[in-house]
C-alpha cells in the first residue's frame, strides 16, 4: 500500500506547478476480499470514523466499510452540521465533550481540513420558563467544566446584529445562552477525511455495496450477504442511521428506534450577515450561514414515520416562517434547495452505541437529529467496543438494555415517543 500523499501548503504549491494534474485519488476503490476481521456497514461519518479508529487506536486494519450508495451520501451529507456539547445529563456531557475535543484536533489528526469552525452556538428563549430551563442546562455544563454563557438582549444585539429583537413580535426574545466552542464543520469533508485516513491505514472502502442479509450461526455473526456477494466477518459494526432497525432485523434484533423525516433548506448565497449558529426556542428553527454564503435553515421533525427522504411542504413553511420572523431579511431570499434525511429516532432521544444480543455484532445508531456532532466520538467508541468486545465507560450508558432496565437517558424528559425528542 502506497503511503498517503500528505496535504500541505507545499503539496498545494507543487500541485499548482504541475497544473493540478498529479493528485492521487484520496482513497482506493478495492474489490471486496472474501472476509475481514471487522466489517462496518454504512459509509457515513460514523462508519468511516469507526474504521479509522479501529486501525489507528486498536491496530485492527483488516477492515472493510460497506456503503450501498456513495460515502457521505446519507445523513452525513444532508445535515446542518451543528457541533456542540451543551447537554444536561452527565452521560451525554461526557460523551459529547469527548466528541468536541476530538473535533478540535480533527483536521490535524486526519491531515484533512474538515473546516471545523467554533463560531458559537446560541439558543434564544422567550419566556421565564424557557430561560430557567436553559440556565439550568448551562449551569450544569459549567459545573461539568464545559464552556457556557448567559446572553442578555444587549449581548445578542452585539453578537447577532441581524436578529429581530423587537418587543412587538409574537414571541419576543428575552435572552439567550451560548456555547462558544460549539460551531459548524464541512459535512462532506468529514466523510472524505475519515475515508482517506482510514484507507491509508489499510481499510477497504467499498461503495455501491448494499448489505442484504446478516448470517448468524450458533448465535454468532459470521457473514454478510451483499449486492457484491457474501463477505465473511469476524465482527460487524452497524452504522446505518435511519436504516438501523432494518439492519438489526436482518440479525433478528428488534430496536427501540423509529425512522422519521427531518427537513432542511438553503437559500441563494448572500454576503455574510450571521457568524454564529442561532436556534430559536419558540419555533424550533435554527439558522446559520455556510462558507458559500447560503443561509442554512433547519427545524423540527415532520412528525410521522417515513423513509421517503422527502420533507413535507408544511414543515418547510414552518421553518421559513420562523426564520423570516427572527431574521426578517430571510423573507426576501430565494430558497435554492430543500431536502430531508431519514432520522433514527430512539425512544429516549439518546443513541445506542453498544453490543447487540448476537455475538460479534455491535452498532451505533439512534442518533435522532443530532448525530453529526457525535461522529468522532461515536466512531471512537464503536471501534473500542468492537476491538475489546466490551463498551468503553464513555458509551457503556448508551446500551440497548437500558430500555428494559429503565436507565434511560431522556435529556428532554419527553417519554418514550420517538418523534417527541
Amino acid at each position, binding site marked *: 500500500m502506497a503511503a498517503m500523499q500528505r496535504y500541505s501548503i507545499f503539496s498545494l504549491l507543487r500541485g499548482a506547478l504541475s497544473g493540478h494534474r498529479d493528485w492521487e485519488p484520496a482513497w482506493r476503490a478495492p474489490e471486496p476480499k472474501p472476509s475481514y476481521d471487522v466489517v462496518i456497514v454504512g459509509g457515513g461519518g460514523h462508519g468511516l470514523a469507526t474504521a479509522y479508529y479501529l486501525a489507528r487506536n486498536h491496530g485492527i486494519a483488516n477492515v472493510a466499510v460497506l456503503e450501498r450508495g456513495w460515502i457521505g451520501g446519507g445523513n452525513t451529507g444532508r445535515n446542518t452540521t451543528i457541533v456542540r456539547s451543551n447537554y444536561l445529563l452527565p452521560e451525554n456531557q461526557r460523551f459529547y465533550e469527548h466528541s468536541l475535543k476530538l473535533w478540535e484536533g480533527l483536521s490535524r489528526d486526519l491531515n484533512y481540513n474538515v473546516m471545523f469552525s467554533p463560531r458559537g452556538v446560541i439558543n434564544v428563549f422567550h419566556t421565564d420558563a424557557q430561560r430557567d430551563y436553559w440556565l439550568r442546562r448551562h449551569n450544569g455544563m459549567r459545573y461539568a467544566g464545559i464552556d457556557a454563557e448567559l446572553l442578555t438582549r444587549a449581548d445578542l444585539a452585539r453578537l447577532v446584529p441581524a436578529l429581530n429583537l423587537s418587543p412587538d413580535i409574537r414571541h419576543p426574545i428575552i435572552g439567550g445562552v451560548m456555547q462558544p466552542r460549539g460551531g459548524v464543520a464541512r459535512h462532506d469533508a468529514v466523510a472524505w477525511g475519515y475515508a482517506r485516513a482510514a484507507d491509508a491505514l489499510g481499510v477497504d472502502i467499498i461503495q455501491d455495496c448494499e448489505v442484504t442479509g446478516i448470517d448468524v450461526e450458533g448465535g454468532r455473526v459470521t457473514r454478510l450477504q451483499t449486492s457484491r456477494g457474501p463477505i465473511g466477518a469476524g465482527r460487524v459494526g452497524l452504522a446505518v442511521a435511519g436504516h438501523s*432497525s*432494518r439492519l438489526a432485523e436482518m440479525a433478528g434484533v*428488534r*430496536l*427501540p*428506534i*423509529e*425512522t422519521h423525516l427531518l427537513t432542511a433548506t438553503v437559500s441563494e448565497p448572500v454576503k455574510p450577515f450571521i457568524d454564529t449558529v442561532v436556534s430559536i426556542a419558540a419555533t424550533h428553527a435554527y439558522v446559520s450561514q455556510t462558507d458559500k454564503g447560503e443561509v442554512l435553515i433547519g427545524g423540527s421533525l415532520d*412528525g*410521522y*414515520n*417515513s*423513509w*421517503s427522504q*422527502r420533507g*413535507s*411542504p*408544511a414543515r418547510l413553511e414552518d421553518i421559513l416562517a420562523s426564520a423570516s420572523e427572527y431574521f426578517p431579511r430571510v423573507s426576501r431570499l430565494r430558497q435554492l434547495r430543500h431536502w430531508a434525511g431519514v432520522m433514527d429516532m430512539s*425512544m429516549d432521544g439518546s443513541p445506542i452505541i453498544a453490543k447487540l444480543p448476537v455475538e460479534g455484532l455491535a452498532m451505533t445508531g439512534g442518533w435522532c437529529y443530532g448525530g453529526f456532532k457525535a461522529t468522532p466520538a461515536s466512531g471512537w467508541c464503536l471501534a473500542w467496543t468492537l476491538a475489546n468486545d466490551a463498551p468503553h465507560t464513555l458509551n457503556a450508558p448508551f446500551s440497548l438494555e437500558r*430500555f*428494559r432496565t429503565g436507565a434511560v437517558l431522556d435529556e428532554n424528559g419527553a417519554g*418514550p*415517543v*420517538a*418523534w417527541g425528542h
Partner: protein
Amino acid sequence: MLLIPCPFCGARDETEFAYGGDAGVERPTDPEAATDEAWTDYLCFHDNPKGPHRELWFHRDGCRRWLEVERDTWTHELGAVRLSRP
C-alpha cells in the same frame, strides 16, 4: 403534504392531525400484572417498516376522533382509513 381522508370530515391536510404512531401496539390490559418485558415492548419496541404501516392519527383540528390509517412509509400512499376503537 398528506391529505388524510377522515371518515367524518373528508380529505384534510396533515397539519390538522396529530400523529399517534404504530397502531399495532397493545397496552397490557392489566398493567399491575404485566411483566417488565411486556411493558417495555409496549412502550419502546414498535414496528418500523419501510413500506405499509398501520398507524394512529388524531383529528385534532376537526372531529377529534382517533383514526387508524394505512400508509406506506416509503411512498406515502394512503390506504384504508377507519375509526380507531374507542
